[in-house]
């Protein structure tokens, strides 16, 4: 079971789980109209390294305002959390019109998923006090969000933060997933 902190830091922190974060698919301007398509994810987890996030926050704060923007981040990397049951049935993106591969819970693939032996996914089983069902992070669906926007959004939509060891585990597995080499 994953341990979490329920106290909200003022800044965006690695391991933060935040509700209703939007990803902008496209913005098209045509014939005097602006068409914006967004995907709203019920829950996302922050993946960006915490030291980078802290430096960005300190650099922007009025007290320690730096003369350069060297430490500023343009965006924060996040990845969506999907309900474990929906992942099993392959229906976690059904509202987007996408059918995903089913994972048989009782077979090896289901066991590998829950034991975090599948590189693409990270399974999280939360304590009963946390308002989240058993979930899965899909590293393949990572996207970026503006730092300042996420910091504002977090004030009302923060759920919890993964405790240190657990967020480091997520970070390490995400790094491994990105760095994987596909051999023929």
């Amino acid at each position: 079971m994953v341990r979490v902190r329920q106290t909200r830091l003022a800044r965006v922190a690695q391991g933060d789980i935040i509700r209703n974060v939007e990803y902008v698919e496209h913005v098209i301007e045509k014939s005097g109209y602006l068409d914006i398509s967004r995907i709203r994810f019920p829950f996302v987890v922050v993946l960006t390294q915490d030291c980078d996030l802290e430096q960005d926050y300190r650099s922007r704060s009025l007290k320690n305002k730096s003369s350069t923007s060297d430490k500023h981040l343009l965006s924060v990397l996040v990845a969506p959390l999907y309900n474990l049951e929906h992942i099993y049935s392959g229906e976690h993106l059904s509202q987007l019109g996408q059918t995903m591969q089913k994972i048989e819970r009782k077979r090896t693939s289901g066991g590998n998923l829950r034991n975090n032996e599948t590189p693409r996914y990270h399974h999280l089983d939360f304590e009963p006090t946390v308002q989240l069902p058993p979930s899965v992070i899909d590293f393949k669906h990572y996207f970026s969000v503006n730092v300042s926007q996420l910091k504002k959004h977090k004030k009302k939509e923060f759920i919890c933060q993964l405790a240190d060891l657990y967020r480091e585990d997520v970070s390490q597995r995400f790094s491994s997933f990105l760095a994987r080499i596909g051999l023929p």
Partner: protein
Amino acid sequence: MKNASQIKLENLWNRSLMQNDSSLFDAGYIKGSSETAVSPASLINQQPGAYLTTKSSRTPSVVKEFLKDVLKPEELERYGMGKPERIHVRAKLIHGKS
């Protein structure tokens, strides 16, 4: 002490039993066979989220519709009904091209 969600679940279960109503099972709310005796106590003592799942033949909206009178929206989210959704916005530019 039971919380509001647990009381609602128990009432739903009791109503289902009294009416010999299999809709709880049909909606995918309860895992396993409809012939399996699942008591309200065992249901409530489990994490409710473990039971709120959809069968492959049932869309989330069917289950959500069934449960919306029982659970608050945030409880539906807690019990795993939230999925990513696409939002389209179309706005007319006041001054034409930017």
